[in-house]
């Protein structure tokens, strides 16, 4: 039996064989985001509506008159995926209640890149999460404005060179620490928040399935390796995603009803250098700069462990989402 035949035999037991994000789109070779979206769609299944922010995924997958989307899909602008998704959710809810569409659970999922989530889309995201729409928001974070040519965002890690945070003679790369949006979502008391990576496909898909089941808002922050923007080899996408987790740069965890849990355990964190040295965007870093980043990564990881060990689930308090409905 060939490998493909093996895949045909075993894969259906593990994963939906149907493609909802179809081949033929124009993503770069080794695009971690396109892979993540493909997996996300398989985990979501057909009863899903996608609200997409402007960005790589909209550009590569919706060249009129073609589309890579087998799911109902809508795109309006850059900063309003959460707002459009809110409307889709409200519309479907009203129409279902009034008997105008079939009486079944259709999940609204809003997706955006790091710019469309953390920068220009932050207000719409915060509003949607605060209002408690039955909607999953997934941020595909490739750590810069890749679609417009690798400009820095608030998701760009410290030290990374981008076209607007270049490695100059005086100022070298990004001068700020990455914004932690997952924590901001936890602060909204969203019942399910998780970080994820397509390098851990089953972990990612399980999280998407969990989020789909939440009756209310949920948020997944997915690290999406971008070979074009990270100046990395396209065949290293999966490896880089794993190194991000193994070094503690991007730990994979979930926060369910306020309770933290690390979903991919790492016995001993590898030095961040293992992750940084494979990417051209960090090429210019001095050992001292790397050390500073290492200190911050270790500190953040310890903070996360404190939460994992210290915080309890609010489901112990018999808290119900939508108490006043």
């Amino acid at each position, binding site marked *: 039996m060939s490998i493909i035949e093996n895949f045909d035999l075993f894969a259906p037991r593990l994963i939906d064989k149907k493609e909802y994000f179809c081949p033929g789109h124009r993503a770069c070779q080794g695009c971690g985001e396109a892979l993540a979206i493909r997996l996300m769609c398989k985990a979501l299944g*057909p*009863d*899903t*509506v996608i*609200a997409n922010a402007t960005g790589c995924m*909209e*550009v590569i997958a*919706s*060249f*009129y*008159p073609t*589309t890579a*989307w*087998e*799911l*109902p*899909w*809508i*795109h*309006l*602008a850059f*900063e*309003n995926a959460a*707002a*459009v*998704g*809110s*409307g*889709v*959710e*409200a*519309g*479907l*809810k*009203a*129409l279902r*209640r*009034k008997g*105008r*569409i*079939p009486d079944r659970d*259709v999940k609204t999922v809003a997706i955006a890149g790091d710019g469309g989530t953390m920068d220009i889309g932050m*207000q*719409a995201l*915060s*509003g949607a999460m*605060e*209002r408690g729409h039955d909607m999953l928001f997934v941020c595909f974070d490739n750590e810069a404005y890749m679609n417009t040519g690798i400009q820095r965002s608030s998701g760009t890690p410290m030290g990374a060179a981008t076209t607007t945070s270049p490695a100059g003679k005086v100022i070298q790369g990004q001068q700020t620490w990455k914004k932690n949006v997952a924590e901001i979502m936890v602060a909204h008391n969203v019942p399910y928040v998780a970080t994820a990576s397509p390098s851990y496909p089953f972990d990612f898909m399980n999280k998407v399935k969990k989020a789909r089941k939440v009756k209310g808002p949920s948020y997944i922050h997915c690290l999406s390796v971008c070979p074009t923007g990270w100046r990395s080899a396209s065949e290293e996408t999966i490896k880089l995603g794993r190194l991000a987790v193994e070094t503690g740069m991007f730990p994979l965890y979930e926060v369910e009803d306020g309770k933290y849990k690390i979903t991919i355990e790492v016995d001993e964190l590898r030095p961040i250098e293992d992750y940084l040295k494979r990417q051209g965007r960090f090429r210019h870093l001095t050992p001292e700069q790397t050390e500073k980043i290492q200190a911050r990564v270790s500190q953040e990881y310890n903070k996360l462990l404190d939460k994992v060990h210290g915080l309890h689930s609010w489901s112990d308090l018999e808290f119900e989402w939508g108490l006043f409905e």
Partner: protein
Amino acid sequence: MAKQVGMEVGIAAAEAVGLCNIDMAAVYPITPQSHIAEHLSDIVADGRIDAEFVTVESEHTSISCVSGASATGARVYTATSSQGLMYMHEILPIVSAMRLPVVMANANRAISGPINIWNDHSDIMPQRDAGWIVFFAENGQEVVDMTIQSFKIAEDDDVMLPICLNMDGFQLTHTVELIEFPDQKEVNKFLPVRKPFATLHPDHPISMGTLGMPEIYAESRKSQDEALINSKKTIFKVWDEWEKMFGRRYKPVETYLAEDAEILLLTMGSMGETAEIAIDELRKKGMRVGLVKLRLWRPFPFEELKAVVKKAKSLIVTDRAVSFGGPGGPVFAEVKSALYNEKERPLVYNSIIGLGGRDVTVKDFMKLIEDAAKAGKKGIIKDYEYYGVRG
């Protein structure tokens, strides 16, 4: 049976929406729209209508949110004003390009700066080319009637465009007027449940809002322009139907004593009723003056306007917005360009008036017309002037 009640126009606008069996509304409060938002939330909270009422965190989100809901096939409503409309600006042309029926009230208010909450038309004018159908209401009755008509027009398969219904902030929204409300059963007959052309639903997955390359973008813009121009047919059809059911006639260009007039005044919105009194007064003095009122701003009613002004000697266009460094106010620029190639046409004057809530009285209109008549006799034509403005 239709009933007449005394009601604040903002409240009446919300009551009219309540008659329309909407499925969803998203609003963000802004003066002087806020009474519409508040009263609509009352109607939903009291269970008088079955709709999702989404209290969004900004106008950018309110327009995005109703667009998302409209794409699912829901009947949607929003309302805004001034800076709120300016904040929506980015999304407005996307809504029309995606052919999403949305009905939006705009309580006309000046834009900053200086910050000013009172009435003029400077908020809607920068949205002129957003591809929306744009109406101006003159009084509370028109607000109620045109709100109901707007859903029917916007959702028609031959139209599928968003509509902005303008009502002057405070002058209309906060004024109590005697308004006749149509009966719920009659509204249901006039405006059945929305039957959407295409919807976002897994049973028939479609992609909405795709990328248009240079090979397709221009065709897309042209077809949208044609759609807006063609919407006139449906607008007129719906107005005919309205007249048959409710007895009130709507036209894109209204006139008052215009047929034999030598001098015509042109207004949009609530000033029209004040101007009518001024016309009466001047007629008593023996002046052959008349009034033209634009109700339909987009698509612009070229033919209808030309027909009513062609015999006049002069036409004074009032503008409640400034086009800085431009040819005059935006209404004046449109009207003048509409008449430029006509053989029979009046001289066109422009008066910028009533900015930022500056009161415009009957006497002001009389003086405006008399001054223009004198200037006309002397052969003085200025591009435009600010009426009664110091400095």
